């Protein structure tokens, strides 16, 4: 009986084999093309302003890929992600300013993000649906209030200035990333982290843990009833996502050499959220498409006053929700499927 069903399964997969192979090949080609574009980008766009945007896109990809673990992976719409980035940025900046090497800063950013995520996740994950979103949103704001008020540690609204540049000391090769003018080197560093996090996000999605998250996203009660410890699974995802956000914060702090509470407000959390939604939550390409589009859009709006730029931002957001609930990647996928269906 069991052998029969297994044979049946094998038969089914053999039938699908041809189409799957073609799709796998297409995915590889597309992936390599994107990687080549990413590597070539700073030599195509050579102005300092454009390269600056490229670095920011890279950092945003790290952030959105980690946020996608929550939104796309578990259906947890977290709206406080920039705050975890901020926690990581402050932890890293303070330690490296005190004389620790850059690598320690990165690790501290990761740990501080994880710790903050755990502390926030414990109460917030007791709520479901959009009540969870509201609480993460409010907690994100509390964290920026703390950054502003713990003046002894953070220097308050003045921010931290003169954060040391990233120094790498690898097998006798020393390099200091003086990012004010020389952006290409740091861009590749950020790109490496972005690729790593995208890979991690992709692998996690296919792991046992990822399937547990998918189950929680689909129906939490059902997931609980088949023996998934939903609260613990969600808490783990939340902590991991916050840790990666903390790492992104560290990358950001040593890039700009200046951070203040204003760099991590709810508006930035909101932007990250829009990037994920716009790109397509739960898709592989989404965390790349979203940051590229939105960073380009906001630099296109630089001519307007910041207030009007926010107005356009908000309008785009509402339109995206209404017109493209699955984001650009989701929309493309659907269009491709519709096309293939017609061809058959």
């Amino acid at each position, binding site marked *: 009986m069991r052998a029969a069903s297994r044979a049946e399964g094998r038969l089914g997969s053999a039938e699908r084999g041809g189409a799957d192979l073609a799709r796998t090949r297409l995915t590889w080609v597309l992936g390599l093309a994107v990687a080549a574009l990413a590597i070539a980008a700073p030599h195509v766009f050579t102005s300092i302003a454009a390269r600056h945007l490229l670095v920011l896109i890279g950092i945003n990809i790290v952030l959105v890929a980690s946020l996608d673990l929550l939104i796309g992976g578990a259906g947890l719409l977290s709206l406080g992600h920039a705050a975890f980035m901020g926690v990581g940025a402050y932890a890293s900046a303070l330690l490296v300013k005190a004389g620790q090497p850059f690598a320690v800063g990165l690790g501290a950013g990761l740990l501080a993000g994880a710790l903050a995520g755990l502390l926030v996740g414990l109460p917030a994950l007791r709520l479901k649906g959009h*009540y969870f979103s509201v609480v993460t949103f409010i907690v994100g704001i509390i964290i920026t209030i703390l950054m502003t008020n713990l003046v002894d540690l953070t220097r308050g609204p003045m921010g931290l200035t003169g954060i040391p540049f990233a120094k790498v000391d690898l097998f006798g090769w020393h390099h200091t990333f003086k990012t004010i003018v020389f952006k290409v080197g740091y861009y590749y560093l950020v790109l490496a982290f972005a690729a790593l996090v995208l890979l991690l996000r992709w692998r996690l999605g296919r792991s046992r843990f990822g399937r547990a998250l998918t189950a929680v996203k689909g129906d939490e009660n059902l997931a609980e009833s088949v023996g998934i410890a939903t609260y613990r699974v969600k808490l783990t995802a939340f902590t991991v996502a916050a840790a990666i956000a903390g790492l992104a914060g560290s990358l950001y702090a040593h890039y700009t050499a200046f951070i203040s509470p204003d760099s991590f407000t709810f508006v930035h959390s909101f932007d990250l959220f829009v990037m994920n939604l716009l790109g397509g939550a739960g898709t592989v390409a989404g965390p790349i498409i979203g940051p590229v589009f939105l960073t380009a859009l906001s630099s296109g709006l630089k001519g307007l006053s910041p207030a009007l730029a926010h107005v356009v931002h*908000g309008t785009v957001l509402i339109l995206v929700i*209404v017109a493209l609930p699955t984001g650009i990647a989701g929309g493309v996928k659907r269009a491709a499927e519709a096309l293939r269906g017609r061809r058959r």
Partner: protein
Amino acid sequence: MALQLALNALHSSSLYALVALGLTLILGVLDIADFAQGAIYMLGAYTAYFATSLFGVPFFLALPIAMVIGALLAAGNYLVVYRPLRRFSGATTFIAALGLLLILQNLALQFFGADFRLVKAPFANVRLNVFGATWTGYQMFIAFAVTVLVIGSWAFLKFTPVGMALRAVSQNRRGALVVGLDPFKVELVAFLLAGALAGAAGTLASGVNAFDPSIAAIVVIKAFAIVIFGGMGSVPGAIVGALIVGLAENLTAGLVNTQYAELTAFVLMILVLLVRPRGLFGPPEAKL
């Protein structure tokens, strides 16, 4: 000292109560976290400012004007944004609400500027001595106006047919539809009422607290923390929650320092989430 703090607490509490009451009504009826209410509060304050300073309208007339504008704006938000989105999940509408807040707050920043404004309050010179504590005439006026508004809202919900329909939808949506209540009418009324209350709160606050467009986000976040603390969708929860938060805030400001006072509402919110996630007066089997 303690009495003075309690008197100060009363007026901040009562202003939070108005916004929290509107938020909790909308949550109960539609399950929408309408953060755009903060923008209506802010526009209520600007209405009072421009009406009194540019057009010479007396303050007492600016209050109903701001309430009408607030009600219309909230109803407009409902018709243009929330109603078309009603087939989506609660999280989607929450994002849309944040989008609206962002749009309205930044439009105000663009057109009204970032300068802090303060409206010249009536009865500023009247002072009452209560056992050594001072109660200004304007604070008394706020307490009086808010009491009237809260009792009025309560009577509206309790005794009028529309109010009863609103409570019915809030308690059991499907049941209310079965007995033939029109959800559209009920939802529209909830937004009109919430908008009027938020507009009134903004106007009343404009005479005591200097404001700029960013007040929109600050107020609604605090009011929402109060709603979670008091119990989502619960009317008594919003009122009692506002009183407790206002008192705790002023005590912290008076006894510890003013910086941490800002955090009081949020600390209470987190405590209640850890101990009793449905809030003080939340429904027992909440939609949590």
